[in-house]
């Protein structure tokens, strides 16, 4: 059964359809990749599904319930987490605090208790800090915990976003180009991390330009081109699809995918 299902999503910016009639679904433990050339509408689709944008048409279901048009915080409370292609880290907070914010939904938050910092708040803080630290270790940022997040390099920020998203213990994880700007070693770590969280039962939707990574870890792939679905299938099916080769992979991409 699918955890996240989007049906016939359409969103236009000033008359131009950024995405049009796009549908997908992803099940627990599955890794679905969404690929396509620049401007194909991948990030826009993520923004619709995560509630940042409202679509003009279409329907989004999370765990079997209609969640179309819900704001991001309500979707997060229902188990949807994401990262951003254009980094959205909390620059003036420490790396550890960034991940602690990721645990916001797992914390009890009461203004008066917090103003007085009651013993219960201190206790909860300790638990949150431990959980956040464990999450940082998992993405290999354990030694940077107390640095200011604004001082991290690009690849580390990408992993910090993953740690923050995972800290919420979501059911669905949307990753927008998690390996961008990462070197080969970091990319392999991310690849292992994604497979690990999927094996734990998370539904993962991955947007990524690194074809080797995509071909290797995806269970299914959806190809978008200029806002419209172009192909959908297993990595092998997508790779052998002539329309995809023509529109997207090109000779260079096809060669890379062939090696994967």
């Amino acid at each position, binding site marked *: 059964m699918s955890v996240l299902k989007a049906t016939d999503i359409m969103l236009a910016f000033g008359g131009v359809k950024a995405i049009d009639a796009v549908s997908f679904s992803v099940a627990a433990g599955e890794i679905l990749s969404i690929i396509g050339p620049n401007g194909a509408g991948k990030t826009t689709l993520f923004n619709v599904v*995560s509630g940042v944008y409202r679509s003009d048409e279409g329907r989004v279901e999370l765990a079997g319930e209609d969640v179309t048009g819900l704001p991001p915080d309500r979707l*997060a409370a229902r188990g949807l987490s994401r990262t951003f292609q254009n980094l*959205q880290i909390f620059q003036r907070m420490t790396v550890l605090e960034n991940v602690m914010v*990721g645990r916001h939904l797992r914390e009890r938050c009461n203004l008066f*208790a917090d103003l007085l910092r009651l013993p219960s708040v201190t206790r909860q803080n300790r638990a949150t800090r431990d959980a956040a630290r464990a999450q940082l270790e998992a993405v290999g940022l354990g030694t940077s915990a107390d640095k200011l997040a604004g001082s991290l390099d690009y690849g580390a920020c990408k992993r910090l976003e993953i740690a923050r998203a995972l800290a919420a213990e979501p059911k669905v994880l949307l990753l927008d180009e998690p390996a961008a700007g990462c070197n080969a070693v970091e990319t392999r770590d991310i690849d292992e991390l994604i497979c690990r969280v999927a094996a734990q039962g998370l539904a993962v939707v991955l947007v990524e330009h690194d074809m080797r990574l995509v071909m290797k870890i995806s269970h299914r792939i959806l190809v978008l081109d200029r806002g419209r679905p172009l192909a959908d299938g297993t990595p092998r099916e997508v790779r052998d699809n002539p329309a995809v080769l023509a529109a997207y992979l090109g000779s260079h991409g096809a060669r890379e995918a062939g090696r994967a």
Partner: protein
Amino acid sequence: MAWLSDRRAATLLVFAVIIAALPLVFPSGYYYRVAALVFVSGFAAIGLNVLMGQAGQVSLGHAGFFGIGGYAVAIGPAHLGIAPWAATPIGAVLSAALAYVVGRPILRLKGHYLAIATLGFGMLVALVITTESRWTGGPDGMPVAKLVLFGWRATGASTWYWISGAVLLIGAWIALNLAETPTGRAFRALHDSEVAARVAGIDVARVKLQAFVVAAVYASLAGSLLAMMNGFINPDQAGFLHSVELVTMVVLGGLGSVAGAIVGAAVLVTLPQLLTVFQEYENVMLGLIIIVSMIFMRDGVVPTAARLLARRGQP
């Protein structure tokens, strides 16, 4: 001494020692009054800093809440038979309620738009205070009854020094508490990235409102305190210039720094007193000093100083 390694406790201890020791170097009783003014303004600035420094939302109308607190302790005893000590929390509750009602629509706005909307709010409060002269004494202001606690009358500069010093410490304690809690982290998160905060499950509208209400209550309490200390209040307390002064304290001292809010208040309260030697050029000098400090200490006095100290501490 594990509690000393806690930065919050260490900061509070430093504040307490300074407040306790300051009178030892006062050459005259007049300085008690100046220091008490610093403490009251510092208290209001700490609250505004929760909104501006932590949550990243500006308010150019915060003196409106200051005025509500002030006029609560003026009008309550004079017209309604409410004791001054009771009028203080009543003013705070009124301010909180008003902040809640006004904040809901206003805080949807961002940046300049929010600044203008809060400015409008502040002007509205000042206008009401000025025109409702039957209750408020109009532009001339009105006297404020003395604070009486269990039969003891709070009068004299040194008495108010200790009262405002204690209140300042409590205000600093609460603001320091907040920073490292789920609420405080939510404030700071939305300051840096609203969309990431929302995706992390933070109800941004609600959290902004909380910061606005907290800051309003701080301002209201400071207004009550100042009115009782002065025994008098006029509409300037609620006016636009006072709002700007409060914002300047926060930015000059350092956004997000509790110590910065107090330092900013100290600068803005004491500089005019020091600059009286320049006579008619007093305001020009004040403006110049603020401009120059913002150019050379963009992050504010306290964060800049802290960075310099940290750099010197390194081998």
